[in-house]
């Protein structure tokens, strides 16, 4: 496997607009976004008109587009709030997607230089991942690094990277109890590394700053696990965590990689953790069931595409989780509906993938 060349015309930048006025957000990102096509999906709950500055190559989707495309095909899928971005993933026709929350701006690295998050994500997706053996110098394809002594040569070509998970300076993506206990805590540590999350290891994927190969990961990134009291702050959601676990389990099965680390974005202070905490502990409680469930998922040899894998996970969710909480039964239904929707509307640039051998 060698490095892939990813052209600008193969990338869509998908923004879920939870705020109507995107002027300052888009102006901050302008130097990095201007050469790409943007898909902006307006939260269907947002009443005001979107304010978008000039000079971008973009497409805006609103509630009426969502209703038209999805129609009555699913009662389980809800695109409101943070989930609106998934509509953008569905209608994109590009091979790669970068998505960032609309309360984030470009960060600066530890030398004070502006971080080109899009470029870093593209590099992460274009270079192989190495999930089968841990490299202690992190990403071996980075300039100035390599595989260390003791790294098997047969594993050095790596596998395709399906998902690139970035991080956040300032307001880190902690849950509400953690942030509420340490209200002044801000993440100021810039860790200059990208690494592959090893096969078999699961992690909480934050939707705040991610990029992915749409063909490989698209069918597994969807509005699934919706909390009863889900709100418009990340503290009040776990939908991205659920998708991320699906993606990782599927990548492990199909032999694709997931990277984490650079790039950082700067996440603006927003919301009040204590208020979110008062609302609902639901997300925190659900994780206690969700994580052991995904750790126990075993997919069959017959599942050779992301869609196949998703359908097997749906069956397992129905069998093992649905009885525990209605939110899981709805998630299973949403997953099944999403795969139908993806096959009908979404698989533009090719469907699924065959497993690659690591």
């Amino acid at each position, binding site marked *: 496997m060698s490095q892939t060349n990813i052209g600008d015309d193969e990338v869509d930048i998908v923004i879920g607009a939870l705020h109507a006025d995107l002027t300052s957000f888009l102006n901050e990102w302008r130097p990095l976004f201007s050469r790409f096509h943007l898909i902006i999906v307006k939260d269907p709950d947002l009443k005001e008109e979107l304010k978008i500055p000039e000079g971008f190559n973009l497409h805006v989707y609103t509630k009426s587009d969502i209703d038209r495309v999805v129609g009555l095909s699913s009662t389980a899928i809800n695109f409101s709030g943070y989930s609106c971005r998934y509509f953008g993933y569905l209608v994109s026709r590009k091979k790669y997607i970068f998505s960032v929350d609309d309360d984030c701006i470009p960060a600066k690295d*530890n030398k004070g230089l502006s971080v080109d998050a899009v470029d870093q994500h593209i590099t992460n997706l274009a270079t192989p991942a190495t999930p089968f*053996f*841990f*490299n*202690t*110098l*992190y990403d071996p394809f*980075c300039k*100035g*690094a*390599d*595989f*260390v*002594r*003791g*790294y*098997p*040569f*047969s*594993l050095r070509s790596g596998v395709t990277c399906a998902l690139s998970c970035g*991080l956040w300076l300032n307001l*880190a*993506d*902690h*849950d509400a109890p*953690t942030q509420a206990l*340490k209200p002044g*805590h801000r*993440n*100021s*540590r*810039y*860790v*200059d*590394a990208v690494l592959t*999350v*090893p*096969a*078999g*290891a*699961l*992690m*909480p*994927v*934050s939707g705040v700053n991610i990029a992915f190969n749409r063909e490989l990961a698209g069918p597994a990134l969807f509005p699934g696990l919706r909390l009863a009291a889900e709100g418009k702050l*990340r*503290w009040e959601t*776990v939908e991205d*965590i659920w998708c*991320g676990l699906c993606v990782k389990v599927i990548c492990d099965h199909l032999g694709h990689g997931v990277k*984490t680390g650079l790039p950082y974005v700067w996440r603006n202070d927003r919301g009040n953790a204590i208020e979110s905490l008062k609302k609902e502990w639901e*997300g*925190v409680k659900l*994780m*206690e069931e*969700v*994580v*052991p469930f995904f*750790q*126990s998922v075993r997919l069959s040899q017959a599942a050779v595409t992301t869609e196949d894998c998703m359908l097997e996970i749906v069956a397992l969710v129905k069998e093992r989780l649905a009885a525990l909480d209605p939110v899981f039964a709805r998630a299973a239904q949403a997953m099944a509906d999403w795969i139908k929707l993806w096959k009908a509307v979404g698989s533009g640039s090719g469907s699924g993938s065959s497993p690659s051998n690591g």
Partner: protein
Amino acid sequence: MAGTPATPLLKDELDIVIPTIRNLDFLEMWRPFFQQYHLIIVQDGDPSKTIRVPDGFDYELYNRNDINRILGPKASCISFKDSACRCFGYMVSKKKYIYTIDDDCFVAKDPSGKDINALEQHIKNLLTPSTPFFFNTLYDPYRDGADFVRGYPFSLREGVPTAVSHGLWLNIPDYDAPTQLVKPRERNTRYVDAVMTIPKGTLFPMCGMNLGFNRELIGPAMYFGLMGDGQPIGRYDDMWAGWCTKLICDHMGLGIKTGLPYIWHSKASNPFVNLKKEYKGIYWQEELIPFFQSVILPKECTTVQKCYIELSKQVRAKLGKIDEYFIKLADAMVTWIEAWDELNPSGASAEVRNGPAK
């Protein structure tokens, strides 16, 4: 929040083990950080040579004659003319923790220009829990300024005891001979400000240049194998110990961390000499990695020693076919445990801890 408590020195609980064939002038640079600790010097090569240790250090020194005298026939398990002999130091130590360092490793500077107290960082790593069951995307959550991310189950936040702290190197990176030949001028200049737990089930290449461990928890697994004089292989001592140790840690519910601290590695060994030592290892590791990935230790193995003896049986049975060397190695593994138990008769065995089922 209260100020950060100072890291305990552990000066009566930690030994520093240094293998050497030359004078230990490098200790002058480490004096501010090492002087309070007891050193165990394992002198390899010609026992009639006198090793000069700078004044003011408290140490015991063992040469080959001492090793032969103390172990008798069991001395056959300790390598000669290879830094693998360092594990003799682990065996004779009476302390709870070990830090081992090579004699061409010096104090590094962090990005602010401050000298890095590597030993202090290793102690921090060893005294805080590891998190092998779920990957935290902000790395070690117990570090100052870090925490668990949203989605990390609260039931997993207590972590498990840390058995090993694997440090890294600036300047000369730990590359194998082929990589050294292709990139003779590459230097590791990237300071990655992170410590992280290597997930359960994931193997890694453990480098013995800058390594700390809890001898009570994992000491018997830190056998550095048969290398050097009379052996077909070299430069795989720490690799072997690392694979065995990781396997046993995973079984026993213990954690291994990697990342900080950095030391400054000053000497690049000759790549042609290295190639001669390593080349069998380069082929053999292609079989060794799948072997280690497939080893299952039975539930009855409730101590590190029992795990290690069981592992030696599987090495004999499954690797003996690759080369007779592995039969000798399996014998040496048993001899090592016998010698360890003789020299450490009341050694505490760590209980098996069970993590969530995978």
